[in-house]
């Protein structure tokens, strides 16, 4: 029914990261446990914990994938598999076409020094180094001369709004400021792939909001492939291009926010979307249909609405507009879809009403 969505075109470029049937089982004999689980998904595997359960997914260049799940769902383990902080038990992970598991130690270190950055939930800052030295750490690891890395670290701190705090030690800064250091550090090596493991979970709600805005700003500026972990569904909806919802190590659904809200694949996913104010989440495009599919005779002319906005932000126009079908325009102003006003109003005002 809905054609255009915000997912990247599947064929344009190969995925940056590609997971094929990835398993991660903790315990003394993971291989045997996986065999039993493959035979019977409900098999007992005493002494083992299956944290990542037969996960396959692709992450495209420039895409932001949010992995959402409650604690214990395996999301943090998954991101650690993608960065090979954890070795996987079965399956394979390709990063830019190279099999991650087969990289030598030196190759892996080189990959991390040039391609990857990661932000951690509890910041993971070195307590004995000041802000500047913390940010310079990955540059120091790859052996950049002192002057160059200090200059770069200053630049990064300015980017996250911490200029003037270069000499401060982590313990002298607030949680939000510490995470800004963590972000600056992860960006210092100009990584192509950016992992963020619940970066804002440890922060107060107000600061979290502020940091999300900050993050969106950086995201817009930097154009990186981003894998973002969160347990906060609202956060996921707010930030994601695509969301992967995990439960018990499995990916329940992976799709755009609009489609997850509109068409939850499982009951579990539906439970998350049930209480969501969908008008805040859904973009006009999410409800759009191809112009030629609209019933003949409908009025299609007139001003188009920006399809990339949420229904909530278009509320006034939707209420005031009298047309049954409203054209939707993309960023360039070209009309690419039509919105059925009644359906949009239903969502805006609540289904029950």
């Amino acid at each position, binding site marked *: 029914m809905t054609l255009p969505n915000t997912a990247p075109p599947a064929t344009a470029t190969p995925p940056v990261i590609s997971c094929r049937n990835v398993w991660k089982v903790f315990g003394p004999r993971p291989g045997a446990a996986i065999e039993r689980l493959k035979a019977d998904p409900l098999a007992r595997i005493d002494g083992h914990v299956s944290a990542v359960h037969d996960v396959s997914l692709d992450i495209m260049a420039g895409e932001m994938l949010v992995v959402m799940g409650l604690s214990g769902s395996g999301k943090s383990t998954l991101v650690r598999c993608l960065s090979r902080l954890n070795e996987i038990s079965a399956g394979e992970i390709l990063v830019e076409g190279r099999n991650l598991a087969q990289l030598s130690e030196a190759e892996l270190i080189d990959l991390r020094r040039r391609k990857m950055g990661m932000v951690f939930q509890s910041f*993971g800052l070195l*307590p004995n180094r000041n802000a500047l030295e913390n940010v310079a750490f990955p540059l120091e690891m*790859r052996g950049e001369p002192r002057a160059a890395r200090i200059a770069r670290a200053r630049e990064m701190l300015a980017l996250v709004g911490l200029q003037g705090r270069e*000499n401060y*030690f982590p313990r002298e800064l607030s949680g939000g400021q510490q995470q800004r250091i963590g972000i600056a550090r992860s960006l210092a090596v100009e990584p192509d792939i950016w992992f963020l493991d619940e970066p804002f979970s440890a922060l107060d709600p107000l600061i979290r909001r502020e940091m999300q805005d900050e993050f969106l700003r950086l995201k817009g500026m930097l154009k990186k492939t981003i894998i973002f972990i969160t347990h906060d569904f609202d956060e996921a909806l707010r930030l994601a291009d695509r969301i992967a919802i995990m439960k018990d190590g499995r990916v329940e659904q992976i799709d755009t926010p609009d489609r997850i809200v509109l068409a939850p694949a499982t009951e579990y996913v539906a439970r998350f979307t049930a209480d969501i104010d969908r008008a805040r989440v859904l973009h006009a495009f999410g409800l759009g249909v191809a112009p030629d599919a609209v019933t003949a005779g409908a009025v299609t002319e007139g001003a188009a609405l920006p399809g990339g906005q949420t229904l909530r932000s278009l509320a006034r126009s939707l209420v005031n507009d009298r047309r049954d079908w409203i054209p939707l325009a993309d960023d360039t102003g070209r009309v690419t879809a039509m919105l059925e006003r009644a359906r949009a109003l239903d969502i805006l005002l609540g289904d029950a009403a």
Partner: protein
Amino acid sequence: MSMTDQIRLPKSAPRPQIAMLLIGLAAVLVLTRAALPEGLIRPPDWLILPFADWVNTVFTFLRDDLGLMALTRAFAGMVEWLLDVTANILYGKSRWPRLGPLPWSVVAITMAALGAWLGGWRLAVLAGGTFTWIAVMGQWQWAMETLSVIAVAAPFSIVTGLLLGIAAWRFRLVARVLDPVLNIAQSLPHFAYMIPVVVFIGVGPKAGAIVTIIFSVPPMIRMTALGLAKVPDEVVEAGRMGGATPFQLLRKVRLPTARTEILVGVNQVIMQCLAMVVLASFIGMPGLGQKLLQLLQALKIGLSVEIGITIVLIAVVLDRLTRAWAMRQPQHHAGGLRWWQRHPVLLAWALAVVLAFALAQIFPILAQVPRREALSIAAPIDLVMDQVIRLVDPLTTWLRWFLITWVLIPLRDAIQFLPFSAILLAVAAAGWAIGGWRSALVVGGFIALIAVSGWWDRAMITVYMVGFSVCLAALIGFPLGIWAARGEARAQRMLLICDTLQTFPSFIYLIPVVMLFGVNDVAVVMAVVTFAAVPLIRYTTLGLRGVAPELIEAAQMSGATRRQLLWQVQLPMALPVMMVGVNQSVMFSLFMVIIAAFIGTQDLGQELQRALSASDVGKGMVLGLAVAFLGLAVDHLIRSWSRNRAA
């Protein structure tokens, strides 16, 4: 004693029936003692294994056949070379580099500057004042002899401990081997270490340094491994994602992040070194310890108090300095400062040292205070002590008579009356009641090993002295701890006192008791009681203050009286922490009883000292292990009890 009523066994105690059965059996053995064969009363000769001979055979093989002696001697030679360097610098021993001695004023200024840098002006006054006192009291030479050994032993221990700690953290196998070794090492009495050192290294400062190193390494290993294990995963992951190689990860991420624990380890190393200052003088370590030992043996109370004060002051200063260093958090400087603005203490130190060197050339008294010009407070102390002793003499004489006649002797006779088989069963029963058959096997095994070592009677004397002392210490320690825990400020003050008392080298505790009670068993008991009460007070206070406030509020809202609150809520909740105190108290008592051998006791300690005199490695090791097993058995019982309670 009433406190022990609170140690209720958990309801789920594994098979209390069997424990009761064992106890019953033990009781039967006691009641039918007259009819028992001799072999059940004392460990029979055929049961006693010649452990000492075996150990000696091994040692002789190591020393003579394997030529380990050459190796240890070479090592000792290196240590001695280092000792000569520090000895030359600190007190001018005529060895390379022939630069010393440093004027005392320079050392005092340096210590004061260290204090100022690490902990502000109070610490500066304490550190500088201590070293001025040492110089003015004419103890400079002795103190520097002591410090010259510590200056070699402590860094050596720290580096060794760091490396072993890293190895233990990194390689499971090393940890698995090291852990039991460290457990036993930390419960072996000091004398037991000294005998092999005398055999392999000889006597003198180098032997003192090496025994100090051996004794002070374990806490460093433990703290390093602990600190490394405690580094948050995310910090390590951040390091790995930063592209650190394993070595970079260790050096730039793990070790700096474990800094606090490692520095606490450093602090413990230095405190252990100071604890050995006096004891190592038994094998020829020069300095304050040797002097104190001589003076105490000559019953020169005033002079030994002077030395005692110095040792305590040095211990407190070094403790505070290293603790300040460990707790020191990095702080940023305002930008745009010159280096001398950022390091005012360094600058002041450099200027003061130059000045002191110059002045010492003009006024020799600033370089060295000759003994004839030194002050002494010995005479007034002796005078006052004579008066005090005369005053309390009736009391101490009575106490001595009472304790010996009505407590110590009956207790000793009672414990010697008990058949060893009954004691063995009772201990196993305690193990069974607390931790099931495993514990019964472990503690029973420890005690059985003592029985077959051939030192049963001596060990039982140690047991009764320690048992009685800990009970007495509990009578003092628990009420004091409960009293101190009544208010936050009071608790803080009490904890500070306890911490300070615990920095005193154990030997110091012997000075006042020898002053008051003379040289006899009562003095030993009194010293042990004082020493053992400190951890009891400390952990009782800590435990009671640690009870969650909501719990207390809940009890108060339920209408509990203060008494009910204490007995029904606070004490049961604080019990696990208090038991840690009991555990430590037993360990401290064991060590103290052994050290007190030099006062003249009849227990394992006396035999240990005899073994030391005769350089009998085998006997010393067996005796040392017997002491260690007593400690480990108690430790095992208390730990399993806490574990079961937590589960």
